[in-house]
């Protein structure tokens, strides 16, 4: 069946079952491969997108339940060729090694800073607890979130 979606400010009509995961729709139907598959059970955070402004695990979100809420993926963060402050902060802090978790980390951070523009280190760690970085780059990710907060990344 046809499912209507709004992703990164564009409208899409996708022919699939409502139970199909939002991640599969984004990656394989819409070609937005920035969101990653890591576990399929909402445990690693690599697939995180914003649905109606909140961080959601797209691998366990059924596309039929998204409705009219706008979806923002890592591809939707740049504005007029300018990186989002959180993206800039991740580069500045060198907050990645293999970088497979990076899209999920960045999108989760965007959600965090919107809700809490100046989080403490403890709050950062708590909010990102569901995001796994197997390369162990957590200290720099924390630093990137601090930098992004200082640069007004929550705006």
């Amino acid at each position, binding site marked *: 069946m046809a499912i209507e979606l709004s992703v990164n400010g564009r409208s899409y009509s996708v022919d*699939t*079952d409502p139970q*199909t995961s939002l991640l*599969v729709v984004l*990656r*394989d*139907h819409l*070609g*937005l*491969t*920035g*969101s*990653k*598959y*890591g*576990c*399929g*059970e909402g*445990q*690693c955070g*690599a697939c995180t997108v914003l649905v109606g402004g909140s961080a959601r695990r797209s691998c366990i979100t059924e596309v039929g339940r998204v409705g009219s809420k706008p979806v923002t*993926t*890592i*591809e939707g*963060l*740049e504005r007029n060729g300018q*990186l989002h402050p959180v*993206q*800039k902060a*991740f*580069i500045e802090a*060198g907050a*990645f*090694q*293999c*970088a*497979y*978790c*990076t*899209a999920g980390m*960045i999108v989760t951070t965007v959600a965090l800073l919107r809700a809490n523009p100046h989080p403490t280190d403890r709050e*950062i*760690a*708590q909010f*990102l*607890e569901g*995001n*796994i*970085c*197997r*390369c*162990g*780059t*957590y*200290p*720099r990710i*924390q630093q990137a979130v601090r930098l992004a907060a200082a640069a007004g990344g929550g705006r």
Partner: protein
Amino acid sequence: MSARTSEKPAALEPERYEAFEPPAYHFDVERRDFLKVLGGGIGVFLLVGNPALAQESGRGQLRMPALPQNVGAWLRIAPDGKVTVFTGKVEVGQNVRTSLAQQVSEELHVALDSISMVMGDTERTPYDMGTFGSLTTPTMGPQLRKIASVARDMLIDMAARKWQVDRGRLVAANGTITDKETGRSIPYAALAQGETLAKTVAAEDPLTPPSEWKVAGKPAPKVNAVDFVTGRHQYTPDVRLPGMMYGKVLRPPSYGATLGALDDTQAKAIHGAIVVRDGNFAGVVAPTPEAAERALGALRPQWNAAPAETSSEGVYDYIRKNAVEAESGERGNRLRHAAGSIEAGMAAAHQRLEQTYTVAYIAHAPLEPRAAVAQWENGKLTVWTGTQRPFAVRDDLASLFKVDAGSVHVVMPDTGAAYGGKHTGDAAPEAARLARAAGKPVKLVWTREEEFTWAYFRPVGVMEVRAGLGADRRITAWEYHNYNSGPSAIATPYDIPNQLVQFHPTKYPLRQGSYRALAATANHFARESAMDELARMAGAEPLAFRLKHLSDPRLAAVFQAAAKKFGWPRRKIAPGQGFGIAGGIEKNGRIATCAEVSVDRKSGSVRVVHVVAAFECGAIVNPDGLNNQVSGAQVMGLGGALFEAIEFADGKISNAAFSRYRVPRFRDLPAIDVVLVDRTDQPPAGAGETPIVGLAPAVGNAIFDATGVRLRSMPMAPHGLKT
């Protein structure tokens, strides 16, 4: 599950303990015209091996009809001035795309961002055995520096000829040659314009010493960082081809089970689905991932189970009882080291230590699971896959599909990590088999459960120590046996007159292979825990006890550097607080780790509060990337030290999910201080592995310091500290 023996690795599995012989380089694709490969501009080809082959070719004067077999890497300055470097090494998060480009930038005197690296592509890059063993920095680094320095000299010579001046007046900087006397200058691009000039190098050319490095040796951000923060970088699972279909493989319910009858009636009824059966292999292909999933679920297979010989509970006893007969001859000697007399050393001892240590099977769990995209076109196979050994995967594919290697092209996109776990190309033959049946390109991405079940694991191990302590509090004898985990870093760096050190291959129940630092983690855990026990027995301070037995000044220096940063020895000021230290030598790097833990005896919670890791790997190429590697190794090491373990019984893995297999997360993060000891007088050594080996014993020693409980099995506290 059927037992394996460590002597005969299964097909598609590399040598378990990795080979350290220098790679037998050869440009393996069919011999091609030298200048055609170059395609205009200026090229420098590095020959490894026979220096007599070095020669110059170009402008039709010197004919060199074919590219020699032993090109290790090459560099091209195109007529538009763009610099491209070709190497068979691959990027898996260890940041060598950046650190290698830095070294080229250093010697060629061009900006870092004007260099692009083509890596791990079997048609475009020279043959390479693989990216493992921390060898990229010590071997490929100097090779690229060499060809870059030769290219720079060629450009200076070209400018000198053009201007008819002495080359000594000319300097190369920022991609431009300048005449110091007249001030006139010419960019590299202008020199390369209209040229087709190739040179091979083999002779030892002088390189810029690390102490004079300007670009290398300094922090540099990841060269393609923007692609990663925007989601533009295409990992293998992100590759999409026109007409591409999605594959799924039917996995057995347990290890060793064989496929009997397969009822595929319902699966075939799904629109667009194709079912493939080839011996024990079965899979489906469909136009969308969700249809492939449905088709897989619709298959009705009959399996013949194989009996399981052991479980995660019984595996230590199993490997201990199933040692393979000790080998004689050279290979046997490589696995055994003896000095003095153990009997005499033990007889001279006043105190004795006899203990057994174990490490569990653990999974690499790279966040990017195994994946491949395969395409057949006119009998030629192209496969995109994340592997540490693209050329080996190409050869495996050629042999499996009975085509010549020239008909297989393996492309390795920068990959979402490997940690030693992607020496094989498991998903590649599966995707290729499905694509051949479908007649269309096929993408296959393993699920996390498949990754946890059908990849290979870090070997389980049992380590036995017998040691004696003399009246002078020095170790008189050291007997050490490692069963199955491996011989890496098995030799003690401490001065002990009487030694017997031996690795025992055994039968083993699960598919196992390389893991970051190989057995150096298990051997350091056992040795450095035992050293701590011996120090306590001697009533000695653990660091002083180690230093007393140490004559390697570089290892002593990192121990002292770590101790200084940590404030070792520290006095306990809170209940449950404890401090531990450990270190060692591996792959020519030196690591010393200090750890502070906090143990809550009531709840059993064990928290690593602070880690100091001091690391020395010769001259540092990129301090920023190195710091990231060393820090990341401490975090990754926490998992194996405290809670990671694969659980299995009846040929099934029972915790094949991140919800049941705990890996380090933000809440586990200690304060981490990295101390880098830069030895510009030493050649650079690799750094991706060795920094991990000190963490587990340092934490174990700290737990003992806090509680008096000695934990001799990794993971040490999978469910907290039960007392």
